[in-house]
């Protein structure tokens, strides 16, 4: 892909009249031609598992249909820990589930791949939806969400989301989360509401432009201070444990500090591992956190959970396109809603900046594909013209776009003088594991919540519903798991589901030497010792290691 030289494009930009763009005649055709979800050859049909026959992106399919990284023999000598509820994932959903499960009296272990709070939750800038306004209603929230999801969402889940949303806000405030207020002082007052794209009423509650960070601050403190929750940082999930009936009865974690496996036997396992951005579907950069490698999705699928809307992903229009070290970083939609324009290398506006995310993304990709993008050091994108916005509405940058200012400075750009280069970035997994209102999946003992789960957003997610989802369904899953947990661990715990899984792989002619899930992005060069790297297909005979003395 090539584009117009950056310097030349800057000159054209200065000369541009910022005339309104021509309306797009055929949105369907634009999406079909340029949106990555519709790209020719990018989808393959799954050959094994509960969703055999459905289509999903090639990179994800390879992960979903991979072989397990571990064998029974690798777990020889691994310590076993018992608990009632095991929660995997230290983002907002995992913390909400852990807090609720602990309050309901369950013994809880919260294990996270990196550290608690290392998640996409902290990156959520816009806010959280809840129908709390006098002019608003739960019914409106329900209908708006369904409509935005093109009618594909599970109505029971959406109803649950909308009706629990105000209580979720109350719960967060009780735990100390702050929100912007419309009137009143530091204590008391009414919540400030903003209108999300596609909504009929102002429904976004926020705290400056780092709502997710503020939420995570509160959740993290609550989890760390709760003595009933054992918090295990740096313990990625490697495989789920099953019993002979195929129920989920725990998980195998890999302790990165001690370099050994740990088996956790649990009555209920709640996966809250987030999305798939770091698989870089269709070779897209991503706005996602380092840990978003679809590990939970892959393992849930392997143990038998059904998935839905696997072919639907959200590409955020304004990811950073230059410089390369911040590629894919997210510039909030706030910039466009404040009035910033998108311009191509000819200095023309080419799309209504406030159209739906998928339309704007497709339009940017069209400009780049047809040679009207801007090229700088090999990167191609379009301009997001902040300087012109600042001239038009002085002070916007300082008051409304604080995070954008930080981001621009990281890129070595003065945002008031130089336009940012943007192009779409892989942002959100719309579908995921099929769940019910309590987060239970088709596999007994296995719960899923957060971005990992599907059905709430249909084929397109509204702004602010992701933060609401993690709190609402995180809490519900935690409560249900703690109540249904039994104090006695399953008698026979092992990797029983792997035999059937491998038989399916062989029957479908799939390779057995593609191992998954990826715990970290492939380019991370993480040092696992040789324990986890061993599943590269080289080692075929088992040579047991001497067990390490337990600390």
């Amino acid at each position, binding site marked *: 892909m090539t584009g117009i030289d950056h310097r030349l494009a800057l000159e054209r930009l200065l000369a541009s009249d910022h005339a309104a763009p021509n309306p797009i005649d055929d949105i369907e055709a634009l999406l079909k031609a340029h949106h990555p979800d519709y790209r020719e050859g990018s989808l393959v049909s799954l050959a094994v598992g509960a969703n055999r026959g459905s289509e999903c992106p090639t990179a994800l399919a390879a992960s979903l249909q991979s072989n397990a990284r571990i064998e029974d023999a690798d777990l020889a000598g691994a310590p076993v820990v018992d608990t009632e509820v095991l929660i995997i994932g230290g983002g907002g959903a995992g913390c909400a589930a852990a807090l609720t499960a602990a309050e309901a009296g369950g013994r809880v272990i919260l294990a996270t791949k990196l550290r608690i709070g290392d998640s996409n939750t902290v990156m959520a800038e816009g806010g959280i939806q809840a129908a709390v306004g006098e002019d608003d209603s739960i019914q409106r929230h329900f209908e708006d969400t369904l409509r935005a999801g093109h009618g594909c969402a599970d109505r029971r889940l959406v109803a649950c989301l909308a009706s629990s949303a105000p209580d979720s806000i109350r719960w967060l405030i009780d735990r100390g989360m702050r929100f912007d207020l419309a009137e009143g002082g530091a204590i008391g007052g009414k919540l400030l509401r903003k209108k999300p794209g596609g909504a009929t009423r102002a429904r976004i509650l926020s705290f400056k432009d780092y709502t997710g960070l503020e939420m995570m601050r509160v959740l993290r403190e609550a989890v760390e201070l709760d003595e009933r929750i054992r918090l295990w940082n740096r313990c990625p999930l490697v495989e789920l444990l099953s019993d002979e009936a195929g129920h989920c009865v725990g998980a195998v974690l890999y302790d990165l500090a001690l370099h050994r496996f740990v*088996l956790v036997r649990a009555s209920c396992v709640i996966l809250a591992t987030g999305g798939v951005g770091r698989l870089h579907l269709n070779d897209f950069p991503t706005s996602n956190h380092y840990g978003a490698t679809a590990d939970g999705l892959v393992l849930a699928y392997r143990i038998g959970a059904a998935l839905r809307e696997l072919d639907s992903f959200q590409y955020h229009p304004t990811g950073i396109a230059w410089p390369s070290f911040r590629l894919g970083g997210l510039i909030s939609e706030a910039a466009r809603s404040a009035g910033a324009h998108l311009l191509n290398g000819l200095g023309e506006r080419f799309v209504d900046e406030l159209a739906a995310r998928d339309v704007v993304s497709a339009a940017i990709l069209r400009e780049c594909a047809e040679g009207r993008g801007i090229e700088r050091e090999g990167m191609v994108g379009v301009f997001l013209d902040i300087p012109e916005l600042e001239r038009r509405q002085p002070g916007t940058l300082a008051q409304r776009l604080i995070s954008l200012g930080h981001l621009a400075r990281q890129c070595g750009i003065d945002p008031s003088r130089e336009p940012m280069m943007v192009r779409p970035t892989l942002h959100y997994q719309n579908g995921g594991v099929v769940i019910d209102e309590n987060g239970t999946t088709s596999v007994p003992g296995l719960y899923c919540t957060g971005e990992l789960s599907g059905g709430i957003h249909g084929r397109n997610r509204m702004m602010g519903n992701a933060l609401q989802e993690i709190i609402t369904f995180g809490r519900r899953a935690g409560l249900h798991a703690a109540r249904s947990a039994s104090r006695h661990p399953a008698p026979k715990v092992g990797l029983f589901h792997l035999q059937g899984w491998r038989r399916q792989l062989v029957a479908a002619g799939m390779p057995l030497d593609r191992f998954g899930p990826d715990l970290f992005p492939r380019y991370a060069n993480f040092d696992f010792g040789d324990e986890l790297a061993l599943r590269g297909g080289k080692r075929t005979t*088992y040579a047991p290691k001497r067990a390490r003395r337990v600390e």
Partner: protein
Amino acid sequence: MTHRPVLLAPTAAVGADLDAWLQNGGAEGLRHALAAPERIIPALAHAGLRGMGGAGFPTHRKWSSVAGQSAGDKYVLCNGNEDEPGTFKDRHLLSASPHQVIEGALIAAVAVDANHVLLYVNPHQHEALKSTRSAIEQWRASGLLAPIERRLGLRLALDVVESSGRYIGGEETAVIATIEGGFPFPRRKPPYPAESGVHGRPTLINNVETLANVTHILRHGADWYRALGIGGACGTKLYSLSGDVLEPGLFELPMGTSLRELVFTHGGGMLGPLAFKAVFTGGPSNTLLTADDLDVALDFDAVAQRGSRLGTGAMIVISAGTSIVRKVAEYVDFFAAGSCGQCTPCKTGTYQLSRLLRRIDTGVGVQADLRALESLCALLPGSGRCGLVDGAVTVVRSSMQQFREEYEHQLIG
């Protein structure tokens, strides 16, 4: 090589439908038996039929000792408790083709002059229980029992009894205790059931598969049956193949088929790239066969020569990716949970074995644990009234002999 299945033949798989069974040659064996009752036991002796429930005891010897008892109430029990890991043949026979089993039990009644024929079925196996019940109803209504009753001069009681569903309930004296209405507690032998069984009366107990074979021996003759086997072995055997093979399942193969043929031809070979490591034969109460034993013929004598037992014909194949200690610990847990608790050495011994194995398995085991395991293996055998604790010890001892280095690798000091 090709061979025609007998017990799993499509003509036998008629479900509980008695008419279909009769159309496919059913009741022919029973007619032959009634025509010449004195020739039944010699025919079984000539056919070389042995008990398929695990022990491999010659069937005709059991039968003749019951037949030799004084007249009066006698019992024939068909043992379908089947609860050991890796075995799934009896439930299949009872659900897919119960008539060949019932006919075999009736032939036994003719041979030993028994007036009670009871099918003892595990209630956890719903399909088997349902199918057997329905089949029995049809036999009772059919009038086929009348010639037997005429011969006995007594009414013949044909019925189904639900077992307790526990593993120990399959032990023959526990079967008797259950039928008498008690807990499934084994007792000391002798007296053997043939002398003093249900309510003190002579009792014949045979496995489901054994009785199914009787039907076919009586129908086709003992010579035909002998010729089905390979080498010196007679007849066919049902193998329940499971574990890390590509196509697990129930196979009926000539007695004496090699382990290699079973695993690599019929079972489709190993699953994935991992190598063959070992086989747990006949459920857990028996020993391990390793890669050196792949060419062993799977019949009672050849397997016994290797220091193992064919048992029920269950073959749990494990690959190089399986941890021996964990697998053995799982089996010993099964025994510990299944101990009826009457004998202290069994009750506490199986628990201690399990605890020591779990210590080694979870990375906290030391040399002393291994030594303690060895002492228990020397101390426990023969200390219970039934063979449960012996079974637990056998599997531990066998695995320690074959895979000692794996145990030692997992010790921390």
